């Protein structure tokens, strides 16, 4: 069953067609004790049919704990957005989603895919320079709800 209406699918297909770089969504999941992992998988499964530049890599949070640690993922479901600079060369964008990307979060996920996939940043040149000047690790958590 499609979670996205056919009109929205068409709009997304057009947006994704502008992508210049392949995007990999690393989906961290586990089979037991994860209420929304299945729902997250269902949402993510809607995306690759809309663009051949989007792929989902499922990572088992329990069996591949090292990979989760590498990406700073300490709970599931989680998504890390990465991209391919060259065939086989995966670069982490350090964009993360914790929890099912439903509702408003789905829009954020689409925006993240487009950004990482090569669309222009919305940051002004001044702000881009300020962000680029940051010389220490910064972790930003943005709490949201689907509604």
């Amino acid at each position, binding site marked *: 069953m499609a979670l996205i209406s056919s009109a929205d699918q068409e709009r997304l297909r057009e947006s994704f067609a502008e992508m210049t770089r392949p995007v990999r969504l690393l989906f961290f999941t586990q089979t037991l004790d994860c209420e929304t992992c299945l729902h997250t998988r269902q949402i993510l499964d809607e995306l690759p049919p809309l663009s051949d530049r989007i792929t989902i890599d499922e990572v088992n949070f329990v069996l591949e704990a090292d990979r989760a640690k590498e990406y700073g993922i300490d709970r599931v479901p989680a998504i890390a957005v990465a991209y391919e600079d060259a065939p086989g060369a995966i670069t982490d964008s350090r964009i993360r*989603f914790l929890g099912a990307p439903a509702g408003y979060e789905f829009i*954020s996920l689409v925006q*993240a895919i487009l950004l990482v996939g090569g669309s222009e940043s*919305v*940051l002004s040149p001044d702000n881009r320079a300020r962000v680029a000047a*940051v010389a220490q690790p910064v*972790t930003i*958590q943005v709490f*949201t709800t689907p509604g």
Partner: protein
Amino acid sequence: MSLAHEMAFANPLITAYAVEATEFPDLARRYMVNGVPKTVVNDQVEILGALPQDDFIEQALQLPAKKQL
């Protein structure tokens, strides 16, 4: 959310998490999330609500970075 994600994409030292608050009540409690969006930077800076780009970036970068999540 997209501004925090833009910041992460623009600088490899920045990591940005979109956290679904209702799914992780432990995090929502720890960071006293009573309304959304609520942004927490390095466990120190709190930004309530959605702000214009200039204000968001100024507030998000106002404290020196100390520790990672």
